């Protein structure tokens, strides 16, 4: 049968390079596969095509069809078989082609993948990464622009993360693959073409990825008057809002949550104790969203520091609208600034 192939990372990209978000993930996958022969990719069209967003481009040619697996078109089957492969010692990295297609796998993810370590009292670990191109902004058809991340953050046993830049994407995909826990890795597809500097490290002998980096939120812009909390696609929106507000004299601090599970509240709370105001921005619907959790916890942790209620900017309680209306639906720069004004007005 097929055998595991290991190839040296000779000629692998190295050093600091300017890459798109998609290429940064690709580089992270390549590095992880070169470093660890148990890492394998599975998904629909991830092989010769390189995925519909080309995130796995070239990996099939480099690592072969035993490690880059074009699966049958069945999401539950992809996750279910990955669970079995992980039990056997493999580290499957799965691609769910689009956010709206994860639901056939919802049962396997929430009743099986999330709970196997718990129900086996630690005898089994399932180091499975599920990559999900998610969120809107690319003018897509129905079921191709959704933000279902909180459904998974609500399930104990899963880690849920979302990078916001090429550099973060490279570091975080490697950390996710190194994690012994299942990780839902939400990739903001509107950012796939954004470019940024990524440190790919030396050609060989790069430092092992540290899964602990997934747990930490990060202050990506310092400020004194208000904290904008965002993750994934809305971090760029928040940074743009901060830039814009600075012109009119409002100093905004931007915190990139990076992870929804675990939620790094101490980093957010430290920022809010300083700025005393907070607005949370995400594409997912506001109702029961991550913003609700952040707001509730800030109220518990920093009640006497707050000068204004924690406000939220996000999706409406409607199905994702048609592409021609998504600009009005999404938390745009203007809507974020509107919330900033309201918070500053208290």
């Amino acid at each position, binding site marked *: *049968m*097929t*055998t*595991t192939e290991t190839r040296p990372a000779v000629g692998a990209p190295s050093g600091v390079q300017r890459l798109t978000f998609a290429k940064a993930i690709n580089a992270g996958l390549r590095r992880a596969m070169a470093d660890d022969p148990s890492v394998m990719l599975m998904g629909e069209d991830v092989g010769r095509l390189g995925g519909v967003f080309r995130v796995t481009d070239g990996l099939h040619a480099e690592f072969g069809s*035993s490690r880059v697996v074009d*699966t*049958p078109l*069945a999401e*539950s*089957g992809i*996750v*279910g*078989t*990955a*669970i*079995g*492969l*992980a*039990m*056997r*010692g*493999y580290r499957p990295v799965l691609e769910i082609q689009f956010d709206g297609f994860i639901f*056939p796998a919802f*049962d*396997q993810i929430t*009743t*099986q993948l999330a*709970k*196997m*370590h*718990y*129900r*086996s*009292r*630690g*005898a*089994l*670990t399932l180091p499975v990464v599920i990559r999900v191109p998610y969120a809107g902004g690319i003018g897509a058809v129905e079921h191709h622009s959704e933000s279902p991340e909180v459904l998974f953050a609500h399930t*104990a*046993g899963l*880690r849920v993360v979302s990078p916001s830049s090429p550099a973060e994407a490279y570091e975080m995909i490697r950390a996710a693959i190194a*994690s*012994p*826990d299942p990780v839902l890795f939400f990739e903001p597809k509107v950012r796939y073409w954004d470019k940024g500097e990524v440190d790919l490290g030396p050609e060989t002998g790069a430092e092992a990825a540290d*899964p*602990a980096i997934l*747990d930490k939120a990060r202050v990506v812009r310092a400020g004194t008057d208000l904290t904008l909390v965002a993750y994934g696609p809305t971090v760029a929106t928040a940074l743009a809002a901060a830039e814009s507000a600075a012109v009119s004299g409002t100093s905004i601090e931007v915190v990139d949550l990076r992870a929804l*599970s*675990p*939620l*790094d*509240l101490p980093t957010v709370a430290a920022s809010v104790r300083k700025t005393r105001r907070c607005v949370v921005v995400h594409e997912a619907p506001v109702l029961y969203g991550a913003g609700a959790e952040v707001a509730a916890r800030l109220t518990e942790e920093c009640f006497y520091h707050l000068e204004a209620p924690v406000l939220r900017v996000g999706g409406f309680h409607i199905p994702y609208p048609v592409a021609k209306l998504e600009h009005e639906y999404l938390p745009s720069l203007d809507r974020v600034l509107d919330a900033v004004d309201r918070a500053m007005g208290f």
Partner: protein
Amino acid sequence: MTASPLGPLSEDGLVRLLTPAGERVASAAYDEHASSLTTDTLRGMYRDMVLARRFDVEATALQRQGELALFAQALGQEAAQIGSAYALAPQDHVFPSYREHGVALVRGVDLVDVLRLFRGVDHGGWDPLAHGFHLYTLVVGAHPLHATGYAMGVQRDGLVGTGDPATDMAVLTYFGDGSTSQGDVNEAMVFAAVNQAPLVLFCQNNQWAISEPTTSQAIAPIANRAPGFGIPSVRVDGNDPIAVYAVTAAALERARTGGGPTFVEALTYRMGAHTTSDDPSRYRSSEQEQYWRQRDPIDRLRLHLEALGELPEVFQAELADEADALGERLRTEVRAMGRPAADQMFEHVYATPHAVVDAEREWFGAYEASFEGSAR
């Protein structure tokens, strides 16, 4: 187009090597595999079937006494379970559903541990890797995909078709007639087929999914589905331990040697209720129950061994003592299973620290400690 002439419960064409009266009948296809069963092995099978039956009776009684929250009997399915489990090699892996107690016994799992789940002190109860016997799965039909993935891993490890019987591996998954309606079981067949995974899909058609008969799941034999996926299938008399053994041994051999997956349908009968919460008198006839009582798998093997003169009284007496001892040990050890420490619910949620779980655990500890010394 013509519909299948056979219904899903037809006994026509089943592989059968022992009649209900215990007479051995010849089978050109399976005699070779059956011939590896020595009388010692047959007595071992009989012993395990009797012990599995005793386990069922004791566990049901423990539930009635309030010692277990629930119990799912395997009553009547002993031949399907023990016959197939005897065909497994030590290195093989089994993915059961939730009433494969007979298989657990053969795989060396302490049956006391099986009751941890039903007592409500553990979601699992044993080390799945130590026994090659994975944890029970209560979400019907979720686990054949895990078995398929595991088998794909075995392929990648180069442990299929090397010709070394000590290391070549196969994976076997048990599921019921009801679960074959689940998408996941069908997806497992798709993945197993395209990967030619070393897998045996073992369907125990016990005729009832709680109150729904197999005719609610299918209008033709369930085994007929597999060839549509490119997976050969076979229907076997699930109350005939010799036929079940032979059919499973052939399927496992095919898997181990790189021949790909096989679907086995063992037609048997759930003689008991779905679980201790169920009441079969609401939905099935006593005539049907009586019909299948006369096809009791344990009686069948007993009659066969007696006819061979291979079931001496001393063996029977020792077995009765062993069953009594098992019953007593089950009663004692289950009653002694204490409540886990409350703090234990926070363990093993994640393999690495998770700030939210850690904070909640810490809060809970402080909350509990606040009652110390009080009358709570």
